[in-house]
């Protein structure tokens, strides 16, 4: 359904020169699949999502949705952003109904459909509030309701729960899984959280960094609805952790210097002026 074929993306830098963010990425996502894109910070996962959404252009390769090339953003691939992106001048109800308004749906019907989605994310008591009157978790739920109200074939979620606390995140995981099992949409989910990726997806695609490429794919063959105590999930998590280890090392080394090793867990520098670290 989504075919990303040998795609590369280079950014022109302000200070001159160019930065190759993505190098020869190929990925296929089937209809109704829940796929997570996982990788350390800066590996280009959000860039992949932006390319699929049509918010940015790629330099090489092709991206096709249902056989048609991606030309620009559109209502068939709605994005849920990390910073929710709700419009502050509209109430929750109007925000959720916004996409329907763009489609030309009449007011009464719009509001009915919007209320349905608001109920499904358990926000019905807050439908007439403005975004600044909601908590972070509620805003994110409203953003999800807004995306779902448009009933798109594809849902693109860019680290949607990254800014939330653990409890809210766990609740939203369950809600998202329930929504997916009910609607069977195709979901491309970006995250840097291994547990989140494993507990939600059918497939986890691990990316390597600088430049971003696809390192390895892991199929999560666990029963749904997912149970966090399931040993299959732990097994997959460990495999992913091992695959990610060298990527993380690469990233940290760029920051702290060449002696860091994630397996040995030691930090560089027993300098004379360090106050006895490592005791």
């Amino acid at each position, binding site marked *: 359904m989504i075919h990303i074929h040998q795609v590369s993306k280079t950014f022109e830098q302000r200070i001159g020169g160019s930065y190759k963010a993505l190098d020869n990425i190929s990925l296929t996502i089937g209809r109704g699949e829940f796929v997570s894109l996982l990788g350390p910070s800066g590996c280009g996962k959000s860039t992949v999502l932006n390319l699929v*959404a*049509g*918010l940015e252009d790629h330099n090489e390769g092709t991206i096709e949705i249902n056989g048609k090339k991606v030309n*620009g*953003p*559109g*209502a068939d*691939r*709605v*994005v849920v*952003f990390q*910073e929710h*992106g709700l*419009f*502050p*001048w*509209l109430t929750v109800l109007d925000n959720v109904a*916004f*996409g329907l*308004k*763009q*489609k030309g749906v009449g007011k009464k019907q719009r509001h009915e459909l919007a209320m349905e989605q608001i109920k499904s994310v358990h926000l019905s008591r807050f439908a007439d509030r*403005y*975004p*600044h*009157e909601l908590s972070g978790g509620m805003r994110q739920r409203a953003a999800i309701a*807004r995306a779902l109200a*448009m009933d798109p074939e594809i849902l*693109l979620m860019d680290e949607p729960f990254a800014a939330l606390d653990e409890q809210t995140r766990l609740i939203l995981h369950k809600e998202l899984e329930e929504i997916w099992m009910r609607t069977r949409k195709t979901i491309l989910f970006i995250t840097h959280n291994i547990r989140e990726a494993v507990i939600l997806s059918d497939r986890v695609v691990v990316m390597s960094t600088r430049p971003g490429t696809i390192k390895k794919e892991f199929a999560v063959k666990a029963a749904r609805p997912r149970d966090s105590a399931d040993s299959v999930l732990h097994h997959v998590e460990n495999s992913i952790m091992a695959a990610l280890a060298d990527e993380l090392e690469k990233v940290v080394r760029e920051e702290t210097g060449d002696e860091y090793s994630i397996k040995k867990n030691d930090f560089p520098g027993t300098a004379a002026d360090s106050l006895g670290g490592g005791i």
Partner: protein
Amino acid sequence: MQTLQAFYDGFVHGDLLEATLSSVRRLIVSFIISIALGTTLGFLFARFKLLDDTIGFLVVALQTIPSIAWLPFAIIWFGLNEAAVIFITTLGATWTMALSSRTGIKNIPPIYLRAAQTMGTGNGLKMFVQVMIPAAFPHLINGVRVAWAFAWRALVAGELIAKGTGLGQLLQEGRNLGDTSLMLCIVIIIAVLGTLSDHFCFKRLEDKVLERYGLAGSKTK
């Protein structure tokens, strides 16, 4: 005391009321034109860099010209009448509204535009009316307030010279007749109208907008 007498005379016998209404009418007409023109100009500057670099620069220069300097041109083009006054009043307010609008639109957080695009808003009029204007509203309201003040100044300046009924004309009359109490009357009316309109109309609007957007700041009890 004389001033109070002049007030009374003016309103009951004279044309103070008529003059005030004429002035306000002209002001509102010019104001509406300048807001519409200024907002559109500002949007064009924010959207098309070419326009911004060429005409945008011109607008900044034009803004520094005091409205009264336009008066000779206005008189030549429109004659010594109402149209000239409306012309310079509109000029007075348009440039400042354009700059406010440009800043407002340039400062819209890109995420609103991206979110709207992924929901099928497109990049034309729909985006402008449904997303860009509301997103830029806090800046625009501030621009409107400033434009109102500029328009007032330009209006009175223009009316001093043009013919017709209006507060500026009466002020000029008072000067010609040496009637200081009449002049004082007019000045007081101008000040009061300006303050009232700003406080009850624009400031209220601005506060409401800021509150809805969550920019109102914390309330200390």
